[in-house]
């Protein structure tokens, strides 16, 4: 096992008793700063923050201007992380399972990301995980969920949760408390600042161009958020820049968990900040240079978005990515049923966008899950793969939106290019391939995307696609009508029993077409029979 960055000389910890409460630390390497939260978690999972640290670094500036992280910035990160490691030791955090370190877009997009991460690991002991966009969304969801639940207004109707980062803007759309969409836009405050600087245009002109650029990006956001008529979404803003604005626009509410800001006030404040030079922002507002650089553009994005969404007040909450990381550490990394429901909800929104047959899709997904659960001793896959299978099942026919011909291939690229909440980029590739292989050719060495996977991932695709094919074969009636499925496992064979199945000729035919892959992957034949009435009246109708 890796040595934790907070591992202390043994003598320091040897005699200390273990606290009943657990202390955890999460570190985030962001675009303009490295932040750490130290928190205490009690037996019931209640989290109490102990310490928050923040040090400015110019990771984003390096990556977005030079393509990679420079040596000076790397060493600055090393220095910061060594300090953070000491702080963790001071709180007695020495168990590697109690520390989570992640990096976002600035490291993700750096050409020398691996070299950077190696240096960090060697010099500080921090094993930094680079989050992809979907994972960022997932942690944001975990962080924001308690705030949504605490405000009944945000649990009904549409709420767009937005965080403007240095490299990108994350947007999570909640519909009646359920995730309806997760999107990441390459609209970052640092990127905007750099564009302003590179334009070398006078202040007002540069600001106008920035405004236009923001508005262009916001149009994409609006594609997924209905603002017509009375149906206006609420806006919940996250992030250090908007929290800073709260300190100035609602000082009396400083420290509150949630604050409501006037959109007009925010817009004026954004203009005020953008009207100052970075030096003036630092001097007047006591912020670091990296923060001063991003503050104005970030606030402008929030303000323009509020304007586009026609919201008069913006809610701001204290949730951060680090809260999500802590929640993840507390839950031991397992995906909760609630989280799975949110992923499914997001997949259904995606399906609806491509006008899928929801009933059919859900029935296929139900059958797939039943088969997956019954085959657990055979495939040895976990909850996450069950969820991937579910999403693939829900979206396997979305390709028909494009064309009936080779719709499985269309499904693949539609899924690949969708933002499905909760699924990381690798998960999305696996999901897309599982959906693709629900019909026609099984995986082949000529399938470029398939061969780009690791061997382990290829096996997963095969196992899940084989199940999806069978489930799809069982669902022949439009609208998803069909009885409950029972699965019996016998040596060398899988026996499926469908309740209220009626005539199973079609299913039998489709299983013949699709069952080969299952047999190849699992080495088991699939049989199907119908059941009418109670279990005692069960009778075989057909056997493959």
């Amino acid at each position, binding site marked *: 096992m890796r040595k934790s960055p907070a591992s202390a000389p043994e003598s*320091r910890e040897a005699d200390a008793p273990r606290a009943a409460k657990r*202390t955890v630390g999460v570190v985030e390497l962001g675009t303009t700063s490295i932040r750490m939260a130290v928190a205490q978690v009690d037996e019931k999972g209640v989290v109490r923050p102990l*310490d*928050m640290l*923040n*040090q400015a670094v110019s990771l984003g500036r390096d990556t977005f201007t030079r393509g990679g992280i420079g040596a000076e910035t790397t060493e600055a990160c090393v220095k910061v992380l060594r300090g953070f490691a*000491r*702080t963790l030791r001071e709180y*007695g955090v020495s168990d590697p399972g109690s520390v989570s370190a992640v990096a976002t877009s600035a490291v993700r997009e750096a050409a020398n990301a691996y070299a950077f991460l190696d240096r960090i690991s060697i010099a500080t002991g921090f094993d930094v995980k680079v989050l992809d966009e979907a994972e960022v969304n997932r942690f944001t969801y975990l962080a924001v969920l308690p705030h949504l639940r605490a405000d009944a207004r945000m649990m009904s109707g549409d709420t767009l949760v937005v965080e403007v980062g240095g490299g990108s803007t994350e947007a999570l759309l909640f519909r009646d408390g359920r995730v309806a969409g997760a999107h990441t836009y390459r609209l970052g405050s640092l990127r905007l600042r750099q564009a302003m600087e590179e334009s070398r245009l006078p202040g007002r002109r540069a600001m106008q161009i920035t405004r236009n650029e923001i508005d262009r990006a916001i149009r994409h956001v609006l594609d997924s958020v209905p603002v017509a008529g009375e149906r206006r979404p609420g806006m919940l803003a996250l992030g250090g820049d908007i929290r800073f604005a709260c300190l100035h626009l609602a000082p009396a509410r400083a420290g509150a968990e949630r604050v409501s800001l006037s959109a007009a006030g925010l817009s004026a404040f954004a203009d005020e900040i953008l009207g100052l030079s970075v030096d003036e922002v630092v001097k007047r507002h*006591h912020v670091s240079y990296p923060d001063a650089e991003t503050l104005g553009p970030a606030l402008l994005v929030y303000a323009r978005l509020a304007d586009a969404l026609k919201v008069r007040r913006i809610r701001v909450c204290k949730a951060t990515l680090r809260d999500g990381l802590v929640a993840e550490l507390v839950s031991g990394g397992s995906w909760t049923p609630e989280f799975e429901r949110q992923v499914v909800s997001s997949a259904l929104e995606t399906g609806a966008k491509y006008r899928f047959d929801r009933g059919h899709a859900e029935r296929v997904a139900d059958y797939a899950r039943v088969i997956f659960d019954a085959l657990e001793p055979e495939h040895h896959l976990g909850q996450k793969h069950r969820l991937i299978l579910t999403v693939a099942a829900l979206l396997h026919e979305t390709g028909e939106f494009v064309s009936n011909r080779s719709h499985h291939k269309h499904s693949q690229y539609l899924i690949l290019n969708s933002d499905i909440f909760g699924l990381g980029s690798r998960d999305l590739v696996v999901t897309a391939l599982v959906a693709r292989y629900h019909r026609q050719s099984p995986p082949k060495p000529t399938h470029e995307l398939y061969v780009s996977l690791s061997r382990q991932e290829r096996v997963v695709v095969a196992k899940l696609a084989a199940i999806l094919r069978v489930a799809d074969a069982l669902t022949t009636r439009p609208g998803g009508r069909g009885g409950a499925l029972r699965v019996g496992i016998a040596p060398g064979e899988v026996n499926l029993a469908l309740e209220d199945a009626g005539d199973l000729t079609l299913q039998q035919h489709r299983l013949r077409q699709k069952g080969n892959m299952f047999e190849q992957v699992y080495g088991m034949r699939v049989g199907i029979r119908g059941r009418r009435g109670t279990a005692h009246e069960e009778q075989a109708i057909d056997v493959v």
Partner: protein
Amino acid sequence: MKSRQLMLFNRELSWLEFNQRVLDEALSEDTPLLERVKFLGIAASNLDEFFMVRVGGLEMLAASGSRRADPSGLTPARQLEVIGRRVARMVADQYACHRDLLEPQLVAAGIRRVRRREMAPDQARRAEEFFNAELLPVLSPLAVADPADMPDLPGLRLHVLVRQAGAAGRPERCAVIPVGTAMSRLVRLPCPSGHAYALVEDVIAMFAERLLPGAEIEEAVPFRITRNADIGVREDLGGDFMAEMEHVLDQRKYSDCVRLELRASASRAALKWLTGALRVRERGVYAVPGPVNLAGLSALAALEGYDELRYPEWTPQPSPQIDPRESIFDEIRRRDLVLCHPYESFDPVTRLVEEAARDPEVLAIKQILYRTSVSSPVVAALGEAASRGKYVTAVVELRARFDEARNIEWARELERQGAQVIYGLKGLKTHAKLCIVVRREAGGVVRYLHFGTGNYNERTARLYSDVGYMTCDPDLGADASAFFNSVTGCSEPQPFLKLAAAPLGLKERILELIENETARRRQGRRAAIRIKVNALVHPQVIEALYRASQAGVRVDLNVRGICCLRPGVKGLSENITVVSIVDRFLEHSRIFYFYQGGGERVFISSADLMPRNLDRRVELLVPVDDAACRRRLCRILDGYFRDNVKSRVLAPDGTYRAPGPARRRPYRVQFAMCAEALQAVRTAQAARRSVLQPHLPAEEH
């Protein structure tokens, strides 16, 4: 409203008035004789620092031709003029006090200075023996052929100028004899009763020819110079003013000798020679009618015996709230604690660090040390903790004025023991007093905190009146950690839940609290402000207090030292009263009270209300929300505003006067707090005695 200049007192003159109040203690017949000697020494020593840190900077600004007026409207040249006049009067008062009051009374008490011409033969013999044995081996006269070749002499050290007649037809010779700091100022002489002494410079003068043989000694003149330390003015200037100062420093044309003190009996020739050699301006020359450096006579106050000539010895009392048999962690967990020193002992603070050092469940200790004693038990405990594997971080402010060398010494020792030592912040002095102990307990990590208004120095904690607050409040703990992280450079400053820190928001918080009272009063609601600090200089704070007064807020200020606020001016400040207390213990605590619509808020702070504290130092303002602690601090404040013995009331003209004819019984807050501390201990002991715990026989089987 009147012009801003008329609204504020000049800070230098206000400081001189403070020093006058210290001198008044030496002049007061109510003060025990040896304490008066001590106060005379303190006033002299204060004046030394004033010349070093204030006059020097003003001299340079004036020399550069700067005409920039200070907030009271005076240019540097004009300030020097008025300072010169006021100091001349003060010096005259000091020497009159020494010559006319203290010396005769000391003689009456049996403590007698013996001059050369008064020495009995055995006394002269003793002086000669002392010279031969103690002085001759170490004194090294510096022959100065030409005043232009005068070597750099260290400031604030006693020297003796010796003028010798030149040999036939040759010019006179001059030499300077430095009197080392290791030498005692007082040379004890034999006498049948009491205590007789000679001043060391007199003994040197008696036998100077043995150091400079070959020519007749015409004159031996003790003298001392004060050099510009240019610290104070620079720290108080801000922004572009600092740039101006840098320019001045670059172009320093004059010697940095800002004061020359010599005996008034010196010849004109000696005076001319010294002023030429030291390049000191005429206004910097002080010919004093008595011993140069009266602070050196403070050693008399420590003479063995003569206890009847001093205040009765005061032993800080144990805090009745703290059971010495219990762990300090248990005590703090049970309730928040306010400690009031020197009435209560500093031991609980020392215990906190010492227990932390030895407690296996303590993970880390973090402490800010500004000034501490050489043999500080706090530093020793930090070292022990580091040796035992605790994570110890000490922020050591090396720039604590005149304590730099001492701080470096023990900071290095701490590093050797494994502690992480941070040498302050660039450009900012770290003045906050904070100790955090991080302890792992069954319920999780708990942070035990001590916030203070005074330094972690158990020696000064017996002499300075300070308050401390011990708590394990989680919000304050989070804030304290965030504050410490920013001071140690581990993190950028984070928003606080409860604390306010300078220079990032403490001033704004104080202004906000004052403005809140003002707003309430304007709406006809009751409002009140009470502040006890050492200095009130910041123009923004003063203007906020003026606005409060104009709105009708009752503002009571207890400002020990400099106060630039002009109280009692109709239409401006008639609702403000300012009192100052100078007494046995140096008033040092900073306490803030705001009525806040009945929801009274009380704070303690490391900061005075000066630009340097609020804008250029790292300071803390700590809310004391615990009801019992808040009540205690309110009672302490009540006492400070009730004092009618040592309290002096600031008049609109800048003078301080004793309170009017007392209608009430005399109340002296420091004595009352001593009595209260003794009574509290007696009450606690009685309470313990009321619980009888018999030795029970073993149960019969």
